[in-house]
């Protein structure tokens, strides 16, 4: 190895160290400032809470099990709606790909439903479906579904027409185009779409839990605001951050698995 290369590697690893420690320092600085200002009564910890209050709240919640219960409920609802969105959007996008006329007929409705703020639907869903889990799941599905269908369809319709021609010239059928070209070529698109949808499903679940639920992190946030327990509220948000990181990492792991094959 030349000395210039060695120097380059040293510079690179120093750069990575600076970035990594910078992140940690920034986070610690934020926590320390928050804690100190709360301790010195510069901010009211009853309203703004404090890191130590959040930690003790997390501790007591894990002791009585409510931490796992509420997180589990939210996670379950998110995964269920995520699964439904994946299945329904893939199925619908494939149907529309195989029948372009059908797509042209329903396109304006899809666009309208996609741009509609889904939180406006939540109250109506409660009336129609009742105050229960399925309402939350439907709300979450409605947040992600229409955009997912449009994204997948657009991706499918941009498949290189010469690749399709190749399949036909080798005597293949439309089914072969689907299985040998369309689906394998769309895996990166499907994965990136999944990443977006997981986040959107979590948004939908929280909206649903705000309005109609007896459990889950969204319920905890609303409940704690009603009883003015700000520490519980901030703690719920902290847990929510953890849940979203968990889901995102899960999909990244899946992506790595798929690209390794």
């Amino acid at each position: 190895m030349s000395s210039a290369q060695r120097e380059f590697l040293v510079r690179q690893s120093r750069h990575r160290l600076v970035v990594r420690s910078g992140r940690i320092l920034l986070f610690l600085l934020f926590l320390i400032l928050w804690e100190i200002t709360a301790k010195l009564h510069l901010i009211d910890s009853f309203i703004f809470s404090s890191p130590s209050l959040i930690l003790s709240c997390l501790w007591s919640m894990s002791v009585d099990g409510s931490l796992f219960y509420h997180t589990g409920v939210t996670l379950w609802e998110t995964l269920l709606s995520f699964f439904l969105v994946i299945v329904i959007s893939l199925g619908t996008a494939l149907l529309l790909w195989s029948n372009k006329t059908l797509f042209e007929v329903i396109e304006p409705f899809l666009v309208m439903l996609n741009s509609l703020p889904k939180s406006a639907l939540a109250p109506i869903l409660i009336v129609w479906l009742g105050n229960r889990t399925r309402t939350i799941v439907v709300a979450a599905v409605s947040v992600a579904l229409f955009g997912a269908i449009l994204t997948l369809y657009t991706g499918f319709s941009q498949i290189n027409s010469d690749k399709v021609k190749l399949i036909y010239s080798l005597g293949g059928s439309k089914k072969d185009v689907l299985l040998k070209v369309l689906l394998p070529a769309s895996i990166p698109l499907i994965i990136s779409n999944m990443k977006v949808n997981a986040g959107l499903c979590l948004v939908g679940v929280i909206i649903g839990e705000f309005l109609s639920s007896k459990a889950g992190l969204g319920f905890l946030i609303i409940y704690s605001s009603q009883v003015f327990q700000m520490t519980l509220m901030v703690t719920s948000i902290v847990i929510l951050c953890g849940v979203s990181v968990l889901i995102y990492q899960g999909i990244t792991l899946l992506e790595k698995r798929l690209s390794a094959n």
Partner: protein
Amino acid sequence: MIPKLEVKGVSCSYHRMEGETLALSHIEFTMNPGEFLAIAGPSGCGKSTLLSLICGLLSPDQGKILLDGKEVTRPGAGGRIGYMLQKDHLFEWRSILSNACLGPELSGSLTSERKEEIAGMLSDYGLGAFLHSRPSELSGGMRQRAALIRTLALKPDLLLLDEPFSALDYQTRLSVSDDISTIIRSANKTAILVTHDLSEAISIADRVLVLTKRPGQVKAIVPIRFESEKGRTASPLERRNLPEFAGYFNQLWKEIQTHE
């Protein structure tokens, strides 16, 4: 003897909202088995449309296309016509071997012997070390050879080559056209090469068919003959140095120019 291919008075037009475009008008020619025909013409003259028609991917508005005296009813005529496109279109998610096996796989005739045979063909043309590589690991010339093997895997007797060298750099292009010519001639296949490069057409073909600008019509069919003993067996690269080469080039150049 029944000709390998008969194209009889074929016309084809495209339909759009703005109107109808006549792409090809009364195309007529015949090919004998084992013959190599090059089709040259200005861009947009309907060269690729003609290949799609012969392959059965499109059907003509008028006229008939006969393969061994019978009309082509489905694309590729059950593997008897092989179509090689301008780009290799190797699937990145498949290995080279699995790409080359696509044709037999689609027709449900992929046995382990067939697969070994195809692997053998790949090895014969210098891809033996890359059977399990991804297409992105290969150079442009190697990819194009892999695409040719994929076309040959169904053992077609008529090959359609749609500017298969145009995406390659000049040097690769010369060596790949040499390789491909050798492969096709040694297997005694009938082949049609579409190209806009006149010297490529002369270097590889037995006859050159010149199309006019849109709507494409047959302007001339020029037989390419090299008199010397050496000339008849010359490879495309060697042909370029034979005395007749320049004369054919000038003759075809005039044919292409005069209608403008």
